């Protein structure tokens, strides 16, 4: 029997965590692979829909739509910037890749929101649930993405759908955290007032807590979008196409031209999505209490309609009926 060595106590024993994880993954893969293959189905459905739409859309039409959307939600200056940035992406030859990346990001963000916002709401309502959820979120946010890349490939295979799944894992935490925080930060007396006027918990949530937490929730969504984009290079290691793959191939072949194009494309895409999503998070108060119908292109069209003299919209047959 060896004597215990105080200078190196860990020589005597090792907990084989790595082997356990490996065994567990193998066991799950052999027994439950079909479950994970089925999880892919809804993601695949939404991803291919969005991607087909984005890639099929003529670039100029897309830029036009993005311009109008940005004008509506964030104002004219942002709209000009968005159009210029998108035009630049096309000019440097990264348009189709950018559309693929955008499709992956939008799909990932969609799934992050539909799971993350309800989780955040639950956490805000229930202290116990928050206590359980918090370490899980810490885990998600700090574990290096390379660690789960291999098990994900074993369970889901390679390709864009797996790319969406790793992106969801990587980008889910902020939207959950900020939804929880946003709801908890709503002034206590505003919530109490709602209860005092007879509202149920659900009514208070919908009428008071969620509207007042909207800026925080939208910041969470914005952060989730940004994280999704930054995942695109890592995700390209499991054969995800798009801008990330341009960068990865560029690094692999020491092709500075390709890497720069891809990198610039990611930055520009990120800025476009960031500006638009931040615009969505602005409250009515930031817009000087103007309703969305009064600003942007919708407002412009409505003002134009109001300019048309009312007499011309009156049916011409009306006087004849009186005869």
């Amino acid at each position, binding site marked *: 029997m060896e004597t215990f060595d105080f200078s190196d106590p860990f020589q005597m024993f090792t907990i084989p965590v790595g082997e356990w994880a490996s065994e567990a993954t193998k066991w799950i893969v052999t027994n439950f692979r079909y479950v994970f293959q089925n999880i892919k189905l809804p993601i695949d459905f939404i991803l291919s829909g969005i991607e087909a739409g984005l890639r099929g859309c003529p670039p100029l039409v897309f830029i036009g739509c993005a311009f109008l959307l940005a004008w509506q939600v964030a104002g004219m200056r942002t709209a000009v910037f968005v159009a210029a940035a998108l035009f630049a992406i096309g000019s440097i030859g990264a348009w189709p890749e950018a559309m693929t990346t955008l499709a992956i990001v939008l799909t990932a963000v969609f799934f992050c929101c539909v799971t993350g916002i309800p989780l955040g709401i639950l956490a805000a309502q229930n202290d116990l649930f928050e206590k359980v959820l918090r370490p899980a979120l810490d885990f998600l946010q700090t574990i290096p993405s390379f660690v789960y890349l291999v098990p994900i490939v074993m369970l889901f295979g390679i390709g864009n759908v797996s790319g969406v799944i790793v992106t969801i894992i990587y980008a889910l935490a902020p939207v959950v955290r900020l939804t929880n925080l946003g709801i908890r930060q709503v*002034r206590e*007396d*505003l919530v*109490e*007032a*709602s*209860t*005092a*006027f*007879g*509202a*149920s918990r659900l*009514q208070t949530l919908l*009428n*008071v807590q969620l*509207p*007042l937490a909207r800026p925080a929730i939208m910041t969470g969504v914005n952060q989730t979008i940004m994280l999704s984009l930054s995942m695109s290079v890592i995700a390209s290691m499991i054969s995800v196409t798009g801008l990330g793959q341009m960068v990865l191939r560029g690094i692999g072949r020491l092709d500075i031209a390709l890497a720069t194009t891809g990198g610039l494309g990611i930055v520009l895409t990120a800025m476009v999505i960031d500006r638009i999503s931040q615009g969505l998070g602005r*409250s*009515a*108060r930031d817009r000087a*209490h103007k309703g969305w119908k009064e600003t942007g292109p919708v407002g412009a069209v409505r003002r134009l309609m109001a300019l048309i003299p009312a007499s011309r919209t009156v049916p011409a047959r009306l006087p004849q009926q009186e005869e």
Partner: protein
Amino acid sequence: MEWHIECEGVWKIFGPDGKTALQAIRNQALDKNSTKHRLNHIVGVADVSLKIRRGELFCIMGLSGSGKSTLLRHINRLIEPTAGRISVGGADTADMDKKALSRLRSKTIGMVFQHMALWPHRSLQDNVAYGLEIQGIAKKERRRIAAEMLAMMKLDGWEEHYPDELSGGMQQRVGLARALASDPDILLMDEPFSALDPLIRRDLQTQFLDLSQRLHKTTLFVTHDLDEAIRLGDRIAIMRDGEIVQVGTREDIILNPANDYVADFVRPLARSQFLKADAVMNSLTETELATNRRPEHCVPWDASLQHVIEKIAAVRQPIGVVRDDAIVGLIDPYTLLGALRTAEPIA
């Protein structure tokens, strides 16, 4: 006598196990401090029983931490009592299911908050009409009532504006409009004017008194300001450490404070201005009434002390006090001086 709101033996102990803590307090007769240190529970309201008449403006006065706001929140059950019974209009609120409780809060009771608590994302009309919205009243009707309420608070034309565009005084008028929108029987007011500056506060008190005399709502008005309580309250309850120390009219509280605590409170007030002739006079017995000749000069029984002083100074002889056309007492200069000496003790 019809009691509109009744509280009987209401206790509220804050902490993880209020019921057990209450048992311990009852068995060992612990005070507030030892409850906090030995049981790690905080006494919010301690054995409060109150009865409030229909249409009465009832003030609950106390310093911060005295449990007055906590007690108020028991009426519409924003806070559940640890023990005791609360009934509103004869119905025990503990028996109410969710639907009945929602109706009690949205229809029967209106509430006004210390920091206004208007929702910043809703326009004024949507703030005012919230209780109606919860009751499921149609939008058009809601808008009509909201406009009417805002007009009553002299805020017509502000329907589409938002709370952050208003001054504090205007915001609290919206708060009042919101509380009155569903025409409730009861108003709960939690220090509604204490966040406002003194001039606006006085102005709103006047408006509120005027409104309250017109609408005759049973009102529970919580305040930490004795002047406000004296000015507004038909009756006043003074609270300390969760207990009610004294309940009475403003004259009761000022002239006959129940203990040193209340006496300390009312000391700064000029007590003589609340004294009336019948509180100062020497009462006459039946025989005296029969034998004494009627004094030449008289004052009514509820004449103010100021009035009595002026009268005596003018006529320079004892005056009579008249109630229901009969002499009930006499006031001479010595009686008057004695009364003033007791009313305003030289500290």
